[in-house]
């Protein structure tokens, strides 16, 4: 085996217990000798079987080859693939909350098997089949009575702080996770929270007093080390109490998606029922021919058209800028137990960048592609007119994102475009159907063009030109 055939993942370097690597397009995890007690403990304690049975952990099989670093290797495992890797700053409130509760439930299950979740990173959770799943098989250690939970601070930073801020201050503060890769600093969260939150015992202890304890013992950037303290042993009951307390605190946090930009979109558009049906029919016909394995619906709103793909068992990611629309979509996914739809928050004019160490820990949106098929329905006017992106640049972006594109052109005569232009000068002289086709033909071939009956819009199926 040549080492150059093995590519270590940029995100997998912190824990010496093991690391992820790819070989010939397949993802593996090497368990190092250093992590043998963690892995063997997980497998032999019955915890792995229990978590698998509940669907709380990604399943894996042990394999003999390939071995990435033989002198350190204890085992090689092949985890089941996750259809799309998403990050906490792309999740809606409900998704972050579900991931937090799953993490805490896993901790309680682990303690029952005399194991402990040693960390609590939100990046260790992914959404598979519509449900939050732990993907880090090496997150466990044998539990020793008296020890504290190393991941407590991480849980508060990755989950509790952003959830409290979103629920009790402003939903947009969830985006702080994009700046702070190891979670929202607790002193910052404490400052931003409303004063009334000091009256909630859970928030008081785990957030406000936690921030002050960190400051007192010199952990925060703004404090000098003033004290040295001794950690007192934490009984099992005490640890369970902390974990259960955090669980009920987080479970009690709620945010209702109301007053949204898009809440009444379908009612407000100039779509007649006929046009709506026609649009669905054309998209279905395109999907029949494209037969994609994965679809990204950009500007998906609450996922009405995304479901044309996901209902065919195509893994579909429904992106939208509006956290309320994504929240509504996710609640629908949960309620209907839809396994193939993943709603995510994304501002397409500023999509998720590559982040972390060397810019390689968290992949950008485009690095997670290209995808078989992108759907961009009722989107182009927002990019071209609200954000002044030229049609040429838009076409180039889509050419990097996908192989097939289902895109709707919305002309200036459409009421939605009229609304966008009502408060500004029309400087968009190339924004018309011919200009659109000219820009996209540089990268794509037009496979089909359909008028959406009952509207002035046109739906295109475009295929990337062979390079």
């Amino acid at each position, binding site marked *: 085996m040549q080492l150059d055939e093995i590519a270590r993942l940029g995100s997998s370097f912190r824990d010496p217990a093991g690391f992820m690597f790819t070989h010939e397009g397949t993802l593996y995890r090497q368990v190092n000798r250093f992590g043998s*007690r963690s892995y063997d403990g997980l497998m032999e304690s019955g915890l792995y079987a229990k978590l698998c049975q509940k669907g709380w952990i990604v399943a894996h099989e042990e394999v003999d080859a390939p071995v990435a670093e033989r002198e350190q290797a204890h085992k090689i495992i092949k985890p089941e693939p996750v259809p799309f890797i998403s990050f906490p700053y792309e999740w809606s409130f409900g998704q972050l909350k579900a991931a937090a509760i799953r993490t805490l439930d896993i901790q309680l299950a682990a303690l029952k098997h005399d194991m402990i979740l040693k*960390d609590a990173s939100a990046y260790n959770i992914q959404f598979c089949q519509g449900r939050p799943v732990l993907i880090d098989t090496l997150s466990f250690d044998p539990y020793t009575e008296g*020890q504290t939970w190393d991941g407590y601070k991480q849980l508060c930073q990755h989950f509790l702080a952003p959830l409290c801020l979103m629920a009790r201050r402003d939903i947009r503060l969830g985006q702080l996770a994009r700046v702070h890769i190891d979670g929202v600093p607790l002193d910052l969260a404490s400052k931003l929270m409303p004063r009334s939150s000091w009256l909630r015992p859970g928030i008081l202890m785990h957030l406000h007093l936690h921030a002050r304890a960190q400051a007192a013992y010199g952990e925060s950037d703004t404090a000098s080390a003033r004290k040295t303290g001794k950690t007192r042993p934490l009984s*099992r009951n005490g640890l369970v109490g902390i974990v*259960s307390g955090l669980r009920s605190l987080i479970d009690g946090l709620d945010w209702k998606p109301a007053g949204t930009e898009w809440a009444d979109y379908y009612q407000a558009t100039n779509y007649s029922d006929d046009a709506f049906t026609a649009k669905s029919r054309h998209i279905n016909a395109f999907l029949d021919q494209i037969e994609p394995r994965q679809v990204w619906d950009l500007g998906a709103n609450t996922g009405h058209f995304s479901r044309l793909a996901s209902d065919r068992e195509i893994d579909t990611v429904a992106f939208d800028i509006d956290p309320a629309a994504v929240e509504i979509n996710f609640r629908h996914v949960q309620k209907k137990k839809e396994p193939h739809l993943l709603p995510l928050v994304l501002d397409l004019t500023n999509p998720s960048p590559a982040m972390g160490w060397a810019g390689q820990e968290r992949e950008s949106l485009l690095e997670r592609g290209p995808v078989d098929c992108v759907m961009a329905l009722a989107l182009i006017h927002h990019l071209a007119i609200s954000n002044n992106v030229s049609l040429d640049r838009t076409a180039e972006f889509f050419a990097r994102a996908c192989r097939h594109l289902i895109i709707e052109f919305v002309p200036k005569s459409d009421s939605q475009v009229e609304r966008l232009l009502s408060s500004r000068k029309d400087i968009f002289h190339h924004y018309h159907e011919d200009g659109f086709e000219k820009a996209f033909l540089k990268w794509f071939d037009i496979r089909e063009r359909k008028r959406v009956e009952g509207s002035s819009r046109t739906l295109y199926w475009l295929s990337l030109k062979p390079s």
Partner: protein
Amino acid sequence: MKLVVFFCLLLVLTTSNAYGYLDPGSGSAILQGIIGALAAIGIVLKLYWHRLLRFFGLRKPTAYDDSDEDESTGRPDSRNP
């Protein structure tokens, strides 16, 4: 006396996690000790409160109390010691 010293040493030695790769943060660890002590008292009080209610027949033992599905206790399953 030797035994007492041995157990004290054992307790001190086992409070640190030898395998961890994360910095738990001294403030976070100390806070856990304090909240944990309060929580442990709470859990014991709750247990006795429920036992008292059961004793007076005010609350029936439910499947939830020690079901295998219930992860809320975080304790090894007491039915299979």
